């Protein structure tokens, strides 16, 4: 028998969104368990740098309508406008709350929160004037935010299960309601069932499917794998954001805040090439636009360095004062990972995978939705998803910088609120667990423990990451996509034959990595299949064979199912909550 522990609610993941949700739940005096593979302050939110969006108008005129317009346009019109309105309207509330919690924001002379410009954030519905909307704590905004949220959870006595990895959802076979998860306590190697009336997934992104990524080792799409194995769909997985400025060769992120503060990109001729691609916003165009421009420069022979494989980010003209005060973390990173002191030298950068716009389909209350009968968006009872693992969708085909931290707070809070509401309006006791609860997980673990030979996890992982990098990057070519699908399918079979030498129960990281690989391969499969099928270019999906956006045929969300790699589609929510629809236009910056 697998031991069972009972809670009202289970939160899987303790990054920004998981901890924001947990705070809501803990304050409601519910019995909550928050699982995390790592100690909460080690979650990847910690690495966010530049800021969190909110139209506080502390430095430039601003309002949520303009923020909403920029977000819809940034999404290349694939974002759901009801959800985007919801997020932009709650931005001030959640950011002010975060300040009250103790977030060490930088300050203006008048004592208000310091705000800087960021890519794609404009005034007056896309005018050439940039909005200063990114609320910043130097270039360590994510670190400051994650620690603040952890501190508030300490105060609220949240119960964390630290270094536990969730493995599978447990569904009631009657109606598909989620009634718990199986989880591995890493220190002891014990498998456990955590039973709950609500399960909220906040497992973050899966950028480790690519070779060059800004993402941490832990970003392995665990929630995505759990959902896919439970027979539920994943939405818009073809849309992966390549951040323009990852340190060449190292992948480590250099914030867009550098360009917000006035830095810019140069090719080997010393030309500020973004002026050609985005005459108005230049280096502060949307990330997909800048990444394509950089890739084009490099492909056309204007890249820098011995191999012409990167461009340069120049910021020495900002002066030591601005660099040391506003961008101290960047200086540290550049000196460590690029041997360049940005006070004197430019930083070599390349577009690097950074963020997953797609994910587990939800509505803007954080409830997971999936097609059932006549509805394309029937609520899956008991299951919630927030943060990067979720697809609300507020980011559509391309996310604006600083909207991710905002997404974490708004939907972390909203998901928590909805879960509380659902528990209070349906005060049922715990449902009985299905008879075979946990059996699929036990079978997976038994296979790994029993395997005496097979594929090394690290080999399959490296092949997977190289395949995704070669077949599904900034520009996508039909041949590469076809072959990529076949290769990822092969990798999916190899994952079934992995072998680990380490059979110890105690803190077995080899076992954890093997289980993570099973989640990564589902994510990669969803990405390749969805990208191959979408015959247009939109946001982060740029196809050589279909270079234009095709609103007539493709203004719709992709839904991928693990079973048979089946695809389905559902319409974009074009109607906001209270304002007029923002009609699709040609997207220029």
């Amino acid at each position, binding site marked *: 028998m697998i031991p069972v522990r009972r809670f009202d609610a289970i939160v899987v993941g303790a990054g920004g969104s998981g901890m924001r949700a947990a705070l809501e739940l803990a304050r409601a005096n519910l019995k909550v368990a928050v699982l995390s593979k*790592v*100690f909460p*302050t*080690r*979650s*990847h939110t*910690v*690495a966010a740098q530049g800021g969190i969006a909110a139209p*506080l108008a502390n430095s430039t005129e601003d309002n949520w309508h303009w923020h909403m317009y920029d977000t819809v346009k940034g999404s290349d019109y694939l974002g759901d406008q009801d959800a985007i309105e919801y997020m932009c309207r709650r931005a001030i509330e959640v950011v*002010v*709350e975060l*300040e*009250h*919690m*103790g977030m*060490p*924001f*930088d*300050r*203006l*002379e*008048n*004592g*208000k*929160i310091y705000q800087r410009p960021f890519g794609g954030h404009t005034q007056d519905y896309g005018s050439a004037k940039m909005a200063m909307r990114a609320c910043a*704590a130097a270039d*360590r905004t994510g*670190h*400051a935010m994650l*620690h603040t949220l952890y*501190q*508030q959870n*300490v*105060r609220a006595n949240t119960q964390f299960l630290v270094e536990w990895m969730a493995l599978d959802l447990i569904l009631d076979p009657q109606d598909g309601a989620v009634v718990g998860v199986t989880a591995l306590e890493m*220190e002891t190697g014990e498998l456990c069932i955590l039973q709950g009336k609500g399960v909220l997934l906040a497992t973050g992104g899966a950028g480790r499917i690519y070779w060059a990524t800004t993402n*941490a*080792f*832990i970003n392995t799409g665990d929630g995505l794998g759990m959902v896919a194995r439970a027979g539920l769909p994943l939405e818009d997985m073809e849309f992966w954001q390549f951040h323009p400025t990852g340190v060449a060769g*190292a992948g*480590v*992120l250099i914030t867009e805040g550098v360009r917000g503060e006035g830095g810019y990109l140069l090719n080997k001729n010393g030309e500020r090439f973004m002026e050609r691609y985005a005459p108005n916003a230049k280096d502060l165009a949307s990330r997909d636009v800048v990444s394509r421009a950089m890739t084009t420069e490099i492909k056309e022979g204007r890249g820098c360095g011995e191999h012409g494989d990167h461009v340069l980010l120049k910021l020495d003209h900002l002066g030591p004062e601005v660099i040391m005060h506003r961008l101290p*973390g960047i200086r*540290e*990173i550049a000196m*460590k*990972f690029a041997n360049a002191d940005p006070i004197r030298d430019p930083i070599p950068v390349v577009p690097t995978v950074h963020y997953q716009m797609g994910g587990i389909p939800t509505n803007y209350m954080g409830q997971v939705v999936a097609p059932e009968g006549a509805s394309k968006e029937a609520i899956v009872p008991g299951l919630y998803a927030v943060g990067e693992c979720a697809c609300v969708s507020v980011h559509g085909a391309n996310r604006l910088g600083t909207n991710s931290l905002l997404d974490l707070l708004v939907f972390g809070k909203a998901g928590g609120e909805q879960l509380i509401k659902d528990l209070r309006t349906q005060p049922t006791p715990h449902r009985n667990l299905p008879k075979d609860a946990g059996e699929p997980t036990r079978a997976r673990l038994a296979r790994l423990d029993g395997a005496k030979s097979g594929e*090394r*996890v*690290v080999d399959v992982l490296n092949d997977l990451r190289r395949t995704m990098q070669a077949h599904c990057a900034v520009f996508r070519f039909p041949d590469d996509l076809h072959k990529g699908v076949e290769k990822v399918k092969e990798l999916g079979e190899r994952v079934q034959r992995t072998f*680990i*030498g*380490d059979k*110890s*129960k*105690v*803190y*077995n*990281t*080899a076992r954890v*990595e093997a289980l993570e690989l099973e989640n990564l391969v589902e994510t990669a499969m969803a990405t390749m299949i969805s990208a191959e099928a979408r015959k247009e270019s939109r946001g982060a999906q740029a196809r050589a064979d279909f270079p234009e956006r095709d609103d007539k045929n493709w203004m719709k969300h992709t839904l991928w199912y693990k079973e048979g790699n089946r695809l389905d589609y559902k319409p974009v929510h074009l109607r906001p909550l209270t304002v007029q629809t923002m009609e699709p236009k040609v997207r220029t910056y």
Partner: protein
Amino acid sequence: MKLTIYRYDPEKDAAPRYQDYDVPVDSHDRMLLDALVKAKAQDDSLSFRRSCREGVCGSDAVNINGKNGLACITKIAELPEHVTIRPLPGLPVIRDLIVDMTQFFKQYHSIKPYVMNSDPPPERERLQSPEEREHLDGLYECILCACCSTSCPSWWWNPDKFVGPAGLLQAYRFIADTRDQATSERLDNLEDPYRLFRCHTIMNCVDVCPKGLNPTKAINHIKELLVKRAV
């Protein structure tokens, strides 16, 4: 390069041992963590924590040739050819380089690491001048990696009673925050022969902090405040 790594699996090993790894490093391997990952590719039973690989999550603090540091921002080029890696000193070892940090976090929690302010929150942000905000610099950046506390002889001796440099740095972070109203309660909480005054300014904490922070200075500020309060 040659790595000599502390190994211990309580399921298999009667006592800890050292194991050597020959790791071929090339120009892509910048940091000690890259070498550790390669060693693990040779032997998947080698266990250590890691996550962000850029020095901001605080997972991979280890003892490198006798000095605590983060493997992910320790440059291979600046290390000798032979490196000995041990778990952080002074904490129970769970396995290999993975230590039990319960005591460390207990001390962090003991200083009430959150802003306390009983005024009703205003509609917008609480105001703070840039100068007031600057007092938090050098404090809030702590990543809780435990390099400092586990290099502190006073903390080795009394990990249950002495808060340690990491916890005290954070205690001062909240004292220094103009939005916090609990200075006197915070000082009461530290006015104790062990909790604060076990710091004998040995300054190992300053020497090892991978973020360049100065816990000793923060501890001295707290001591000054206690003196001021007494007179």
